[in-house]
């Protein structure tokens, strides 16, 4: 029972981080109608910046600069590429983002090399026990921060002018333009928010129990992709549920490896994709996605 609770808690904390990344996917999709595959390298860029800068300027400033760098990189992708290709087919745009991703990723891997860069989190690698259930401090803090950010995001999305403008232009871009809503600005802001969320996710993903920043951090962002898809690519609530679902699945599959050994080792790595495929077979537009999505 304790093992189950522990896996559940760890799964939720991992899922909260996935949810941050998935929210980014979703708002970019809503604002720019782009399925953005750049997230993996943006995340790695954030983690790399934080790790590299921590030694010279200290942890907290490094985090702030790291978030700024990912936000800026996301904004540049939007301004220099996506915004100029407005109206291009969704598939072309997706392929373009894959191209950007590969370029950025290649450069980052070259810089990181075979090393594992250490991020000196002040909370270190310690674990805490809550009623017999163990979790790393890093993941616990991640869960709290992600929770606050997600709530803040949903409040802004529901009540702020940006949220209303964003939902209006996601629903009918031309009508929104006729109301004087500047789609370019809405879209740019969405990319910035997605960049910051990816940066925060990066900060926690490279902490305990993960050893540090290596090229492998990239694959983590890819796991947030099934989270966004199975929740429904145009649903922010779906991103949250999808993220948690994927996190819990992964933790469970890894924790009960022995019992699942007939599926082979490392099933935890592929479990998110298996869940995504099963969900999509039953609900092609995801758990909370709208059917009209198929028009795109």
């Amino acid at each position, binding site marked *: 029972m304790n093992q189950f609770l522990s896996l559940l808690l760890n799964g939720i904390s991992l899922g909260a981080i996935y949810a941050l990344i998935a929210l980014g996917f979703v708002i970019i999709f809503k604002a720019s109608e782009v399925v953005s595959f750049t997230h993996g390298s943006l995340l790695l860029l954030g983690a790399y910046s934080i790790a590299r800068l921590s030694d010279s300027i200290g942890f907290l400033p490094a985090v702030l600069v790291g978030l700024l760098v990912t936000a800026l990189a996301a904004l540049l992708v939007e301004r220099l590429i996506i915004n100029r290709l407005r109206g291009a087919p969704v598939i072309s745009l997706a392929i373009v983002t894959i191209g950007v991703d590969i370029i950025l990723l290649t450069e980052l891997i070259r810089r990181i090399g075979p090393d594992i860069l250490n991020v000196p989190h002040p909370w270190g690698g310690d674990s805490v026990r809550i009623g017999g259930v163990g979790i790393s401090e890093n993941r616990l803090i991640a869960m709290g921060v992600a929770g606050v950010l997600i709530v803040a995001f949903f409040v802004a999305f529901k009540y702020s002018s940006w949220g209303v403008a964003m939902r209006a232009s996601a629903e009918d871009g031309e009508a929104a*333009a006729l109301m004087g*809503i500047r789609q370019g600005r809405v879209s740019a802001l969405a990319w910035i928010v997605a960049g910051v969320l990816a940066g925060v996710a990066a900060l926690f993903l490279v902490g305990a129990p993960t050893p540090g920043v290596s090229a492998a951090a990239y694959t983590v962002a890819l796991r947030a992709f099934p989270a966004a898809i199975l929740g429904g690519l145009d649903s922010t609530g779906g991103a949250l549920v999808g993220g948690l679902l994927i996190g819990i699945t992964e933790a469970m599959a890894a924790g009960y490896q022995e019992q699942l050994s007939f599926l082979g080792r490392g099933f935890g790595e592929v479990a998110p994709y298996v869940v995504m495929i099963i969900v999509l077979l039953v609900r092609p537009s995801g758990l909370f996605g709208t059917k009209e999505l198929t028009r795109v």
Partner: protein
Amino acid sequence: MLSIDSLRVTYGGAVEAVRGVSMEVPDGAVVAVLGSNGAGKSTLLRTISGTLRLHRGRVDEGTVRFEDTDLTRRDPGQIVRRGIVQVPEGRRIFGRLTVEENLRAGGMGNRDRAAKAQAVTRVHDLFPVLRERSGQRAGLLSGGEQQMLAIGRALMASPRLLLLDEPSLGLAPRVIGQIGEVIAEINRQGTSVLLVEQNATMALGVADRAYVLDVGRVSLSGDARELAGTDEVQRLYLGHGAALEQRVERAPRRTLSRWTA
């Protein structure tokens, strides 16, 4: 206030939808533009609002002037901020947003807080139903209520010139009558109106001046009441006497520009 001079617009570099149209909307007036499908009415409004580009359309010639600025080089946001707001054809309200959020979205181009508050009061006074339904999803409103919301949403930007694209489309005759009264009231409150319609009875009832568009050209223009009396308008738009032959002959050209639009 608004003056259009020998305007030519093509879609996709091939289909000419507007072929040399000139018209005037004087300050404080209601001007109607009549015409059947594919006459170029919506294209005209898209040109004024700056959304041609979204439809792969382009101004080849001519100018659209609002007071002293040429609008053909401006983007939709700038045009809204100058005081021209469009209620698009088919209402195009944001169905997944609430009524209140739709009005908020309409006020995005309006930076002046006091003006926005005033606009809300004006919209609620014109359409009390929007106040009652403010928390409801707009997609659940009836057709007539959605049209009122579409007009209310546009008024949130405090326009000086309101463009209406076929507000009577798909509505019951009684509701069309109400829409006509609302347009007259909005005009009485000081907003100029450019009304594009197929329903000539309603349009000529509220308009001061009218233009008849036919396959991208102005075929008739003048005082609304006088126009309502002319044979051509009677025949083509008010349903007295049939001009079937002519219509059938012109049909292919109209559908062509419609499909590619």
